[in-house]
Structures are given as C-alpha cells and as structure tokens.
C-alpha cells in the first residue's frame, strides 16, 4: 500500500515536470508547429544593418512572414548579406520587392520590412532582393541635422 502511493507520487511528479516543460515550450517560448513549417530562403544586401540581429523578424504589412536566418559580410561589395527564411505559404513576394530595415518603436528591435512591387514574377528559393534600404541611423541623422547639411 505504501509502495503504491510512493509510485503514484513519483508518477505525478514526473507528469508535473513534463507539463512544465510543455508549458515552457508552448506558452513561454511560443514554440508552435507553425514556426517549424516549411520556408524558402531569400537574400538581400544592405549597406548598414544598424543592429539587425539573427532571428530578427521579417514582416510584410506588419505581419510576420519569416525570420533572419544568417548574417554575413559580402567581401566583394563590403556590404552585409542577410539570409531570410520566408514561410512557404507566403509565395507571392514579387521579384521587385523592397526590403528595408526598420525599428519597432523609437528604441525597439530592428526588423526587416518587405514591401511588394508590381512585378509579375515571384521570388523563389535562393533569389535576392536587390532593392534595399539600410537602417535609419539615428545618430548620423542627428549629426547631419545639427551641422545643417540635412535636406529637409
């Protein structure tokens, strides 16, 4: 009888542990089957990332459509090469889309915003977005403004 209640308690303990793990996975880290879904890679080159980091958000009209999966330096052009994973169900990004690095709020995280163009061809795996806008560098802007060179 004693042994049975001990077994029961240990079983409940292990279930609690599993439950906590599932809670951490789903509710806390937002791990869903969605985030593991199929994606395709698109590249873009930027002159200045301005603090964009790995796993940063890629959004279209404010909706997350992918994430930054790799950042490297392109040695030939001295610019930053960003690899993005775009969810497969967003398969109609036009070939002339524009990628720009923006800031959520005044001081928030950097993310890549994509705005689509009017081309009839769509981006597929391995394609590159040529039209890019670098991060808005607040310090440079203020510096330029202070020295009266800014074109307002």
């Amino acid at each position, binding site marked *: 009888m004693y*042994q049975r209640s*001990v*077994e029961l*308690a*240990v079983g*409940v*303990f*292990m279930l*609690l*542990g599993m*439950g*906590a*793990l599932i*809670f*951490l*996975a789903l*509710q*806390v*880290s*937002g*791990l869903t089957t969605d985030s593991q879904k199929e994606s395709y890679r698109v590249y873009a080159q930027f002159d200045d990332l301005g603090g964009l980091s790995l*796993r940063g*958000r890629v959004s279209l009209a404010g909706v997350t459509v992918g994430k930054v999966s790799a950042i490297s330096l392109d040695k030939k052009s001295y610019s930053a090469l960003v690899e993005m994973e775009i969810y497969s169900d967003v398969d109609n990004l036009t070939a002339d889309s524009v990628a720009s690095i923006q800031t959520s709020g005044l001081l928030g995280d950097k993310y890549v915003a994509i705005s689509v163009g009017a081309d009839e061809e769509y981006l597929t795996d391995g394609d590159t977005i040529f039209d890019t806008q670098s991060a808005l560098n607040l310090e440079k802007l203020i510096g330029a403004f202070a020295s009266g060179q800014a074109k307002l």
Partner: protein
Amino acid sequence: MEFIRRTGRTSMEFAASLGRSGVFLLRAVFGLALSLNGLKLLVAQMYRIGVLSLIIIVVSGLFIGMVLGLQGYSILVDYGSEQAVGQMVALTLVRELGPVVTALLFAGRAGSALTAEIGLMKATEQLSSMEMMGVDPLRRVIAPRFWAGFISMPLLAVIFSAVGIFGGMLVSVDWLGVFEGAYWSNMQSSVEFEGDVVNGIVKSVVFGLVCTWIAIYQGYDLVPTSQGISIATTKTVVYSSLSVLGLDFLLTAVMFGSI
C-alpha cells in the same frame, strides 16, 4: 620548503580524491540494475529526492517569480516598456535562476540528506553488512540514489521556471495591471526554445549530475563518526553550491557568450 611539501601533498591528495570519486561515479552510473527490482528502488529514491523537494521548489519558484515581476515592473515602467516584464521574467528564470536556484535548493534539501543518510549507513556498518551479505552497496544503495537525483533535478528546474513565470504573471498582470496579452506575446517573441529553454535544461542536467555526485561521494567516503557525518554534510552543501555557481558561469559563457 615545508610550504612546497605541503602544497605537493595537498594537490596529490586532491588528485587522488578526484580519481577515487571519478571511479566511484562510473560505478554508480553503471550500477543501476535494469530490472523490476532496480526500478522499484529508483522510484523509492525519486520519491525521497524529487517529490519531497517539490514543495520547497514550488514555493521558492513562486516567490522568486513574483519578486522578479515586481522588480522588473518598477524598473521597466520608467522607460514605458512595462510590457517587456514577461520577457524579462521568463528569460531570467529559464536561462539562469531556474537551473541555478533549483540546484542550490537541491543541494541544501536533498544533497545534504543524501550525504547524511549514506554516511549514517556507513557509520552503523549497514554498508559493510550489505557487502558481507554478498550484496554490492553501490548497486543497492548508491546507484538508485544517483539516478534519482540526476533525473529529478531537470524536472525540478523546469517546474521551478514554470511556477516562477506564473508568479511573475500574478504580480505584473493581476496586481500591477500589465496587459496579459503583452506579457505572453513579448515573452514568446524573445524566448527561444532551442536557445533558452533547452540550454536551461542542459544546465540543470549538468547541475544534477554534479550535485548528486558530490552528495553521494561525500556520504560514501566520509569518516564514519558523527563528527565525520556533520563535516561531510557541510562539505556537500559548500562544494555543491560553489560548483554550481562556477559551472553556471562556464556554461553561460559557452552557451550565451556569443550573443
């Protein structure tokens, strides 16, 4: 001259004790009988090591989460970003406080009890008499305790983190009025499963190994007198705590150093 001699002797003793405990660990790891009987012993020890530590873990987790929520809110509200309190609570708990505080509490609650129990069995010749009966005490006494501690620690750490996040929510959402959706969504966007949750669990697995190892070795290797038991129990808590904090820095540097 005397100093050099003493240093040499101390380091030799240290090396010998490390070697002894290493061999001891290996025998404890592979000593668990994979039979119904062995499983029963394991379950009994899981009860004493894991289940009985549950209350202190849950209560501490709840309070630490609540304190984090309160502190985080009071700092973040100055920058108008009190929505990020969920993110702060969760990252702190999952990456650091969950594994570390659990390991420290574990060393105090279960580790010291393990050392004292094994030490008492040694002092009252129970281990010797088991050997004389042709039963290997490493298999019968040590191995189930080692595995129980090793398995319990990650479970306890995960429960600690989950309860802490819940406690943080109690304070920041229900009391201080942070929007609940923001609490969770900020958390979800910043906590990575592989990067944060899994690394936290890896930490607690390492801590589980080290704390249990220290506890059972101190118990098995102590001088079998009442004074020896009290010294070994103290040693268990001190060594475990220091190892956990030192290893935590090392693991954090390896896991999160590049970010």
